[in-house]
């Protein structure tokens, strides 16, 4: 088992040096490259958000519904909170939610997918069917439903979005793993008498990392999408936390008088999701050898 982990981490390190080459090649795909830049921009904004905000993101003031101007670049909302500061601080909420949920989904989905592919026969069949049935629930509806039972809150939102991702990632991981499993080196490892654990995590897993990377980027984009939707529906992160979806839902009743309350958080969501989707296309093109 230790050997398997060591082998996996070695493979992961060698992937990191690929990163440089990946970025260089990505420049041939301008949209994907822009996506990468926008994503990096948002990562920096979310890390530096406490320093970048000119006002406290949850701080009330008497300047209510101020239109965008020099004092408040993106205007203020009905409590006089600075929207620029809330959009900046909201990026951290978005990243925390989306990264944790994607991580959770990748972990669960990969584990289930690898197991289902490796143990073909009753176990694999059962897991495959279970994933198919879970996929029959539209993701947003499962998330809403479980959140309704568990109650809203950051941790529950992460859990629910991660759960919604798991069967989809599981299916992708399973079909990728089945392809790898059919190759000779896996047969050879079996003949050598390697443990099942070693074969799954050290022979198969490293060879499906590209597929998981594309899927991870798509799921990340979708996590932002889902958490914003849940926030909008009032089932996600609760006020006064700065959250883009929640900001838009609060702005809904002031569309006529204060459209800026919608426009800026909407641009933030769209730019981040679009960037992640463009990047996912780039990773796909890279792993299929198109660039």
């Amino acid at each position, binding site marked *: 088992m230790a050997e398997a982990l060591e082998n996996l981490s070695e493979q992961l390190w060698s992937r990191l040096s690929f990163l440089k080459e990946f970025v260089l090649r990505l420049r041939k795909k301008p949209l994907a490259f822009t996506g990468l830049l926008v994503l990096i921009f948002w990562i920096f904004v979310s890390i530096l958000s406490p320093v970048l905000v000119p006002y406290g993101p949850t701080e009330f003031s008497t300047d209510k519904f101020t239109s965008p101007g020099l004092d408040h670049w993106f205007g203020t909302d009905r409590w006089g909170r600075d929207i620029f500061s809330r959009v900046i601080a909201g990026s951290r909420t978005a990243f925390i939610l989306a990264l944790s949920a994607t991580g959770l989904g990748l972990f669960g989905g990969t584990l289930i997918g690898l197991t289902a592919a490796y143990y073909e026969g009753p176990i694999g069949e059962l897991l495959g069917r279970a994933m198919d049935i879970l996929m*029959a629930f539209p993701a947003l509806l499962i998330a809403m439903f479980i959140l*309704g039972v568990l109650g809203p809150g950051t941790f529950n939102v992460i859990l629910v979005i991660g759960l919604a991702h798991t069967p989809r990632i599981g299916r992708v991981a399973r079909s990728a793993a089945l392809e790898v499993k059919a190759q000779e080196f896996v047969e050879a490892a079996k003949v050598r008498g390697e443990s099942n654990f070693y074969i799954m995590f050290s022979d198969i897993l490293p060879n499906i990392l590209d597929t998981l990377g594309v899927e991870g980027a798509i799921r990340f984009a979708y996590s932002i*999408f889902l958490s914003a939707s849940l926030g909008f529906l*009032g089932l996600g992160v609760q006020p006064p936390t700065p959250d883009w979806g929640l900001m838009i839902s609060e702005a809904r009743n002031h*569309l006529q008088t204060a459209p800026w309350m919608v426009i800026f958080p*909407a641009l933030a969501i769209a730019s981040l*999701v679009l960037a992640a989707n463009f990047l996912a296309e780039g990773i796909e093109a890279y792993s299929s050898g198109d660039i």
Partner: protein
Amino acid sequence: MLIYSSKRLLQAVVSIFIASLLIFLVAEGLPGDVAQMVLGQYATEESLEALRQELGLNRPLHVRYLDWLNGVLHGNFGTSLSRSGIRVGPLLVQRARNSLVLAFGALLFVVPVSLLLGVTAGLNRDSWLDRLISVTTLGLISFPSFITGLILILIFSVYLGWLPASGAIDWSNGIFSQLNKLILPILALSGVMTGYIVRHTRASVVKVMKSDYTRSAILKGMNSKRVIVNHVLRNALLPTITVIAINLGWLLGGAVVVEATFSYPGVARLILTAIKQRDIPIMEAGLLFVVAAYIFVNLFTDLLYSFINPKLRYGEGE
């Protein structure tokens, strides 16, 4: 074909049963007191006990499940907890009708538009038109429908004043005078779906264009219009049916955001309100309806697909 159809039908029914079990378990079987969930944390012990008695919550879980399932099979979905005395069944039927109107409206718009765009992009691969379509559709996929919806409201209701911002239709006034209320919700609902279908259509047209049979058709001098109609479209549009089916499921789930944005009285918003008011009978019935609808749509498209695709029709595939 008959064997295949009955096998798929059986599969669908089993899936719905399992889904009903999962829905029930999550709604009522998770640790936590249902009575507490309904009445809130400040309820007195007496009122909690009274509600447990009324709902029969003191009975074991499996008895309650079988009881509920029995009701569902006889068309009895129970009584709403938050709207006193309202039967869940008729309420659901009424809301489902509204949702279907919205879904069909979106479908009527999405399918022709996205097939046209997808085929155009695929036939003109790597041209500026293809790039434009690809970027636009990726943009459509990236905008959650509540954002699309609010932008549409901003433009068409707030600034131009052409269309109403609320989709609250009322059947008693006749549907045709209210069609304008449906336009914005349908457009908002169509965005993401159009994006996905265009991309899939394009991909499958490109794949068929690269295939040997298309190349040989062109090489043997067949005129290009006939190649496109006989070879490319026939083969490329087949897998697209499945993609449309998958997106129908999305239509049912994604509708919740659109229905909330436009205050549209559909199933999804009924479920959302029920979740917020902890109205368990409506939650369970609504979800079961959506899942069953999704499973049956999938079944229908699978059968349609196998009927159109000769490989499956003669039992070579599967």
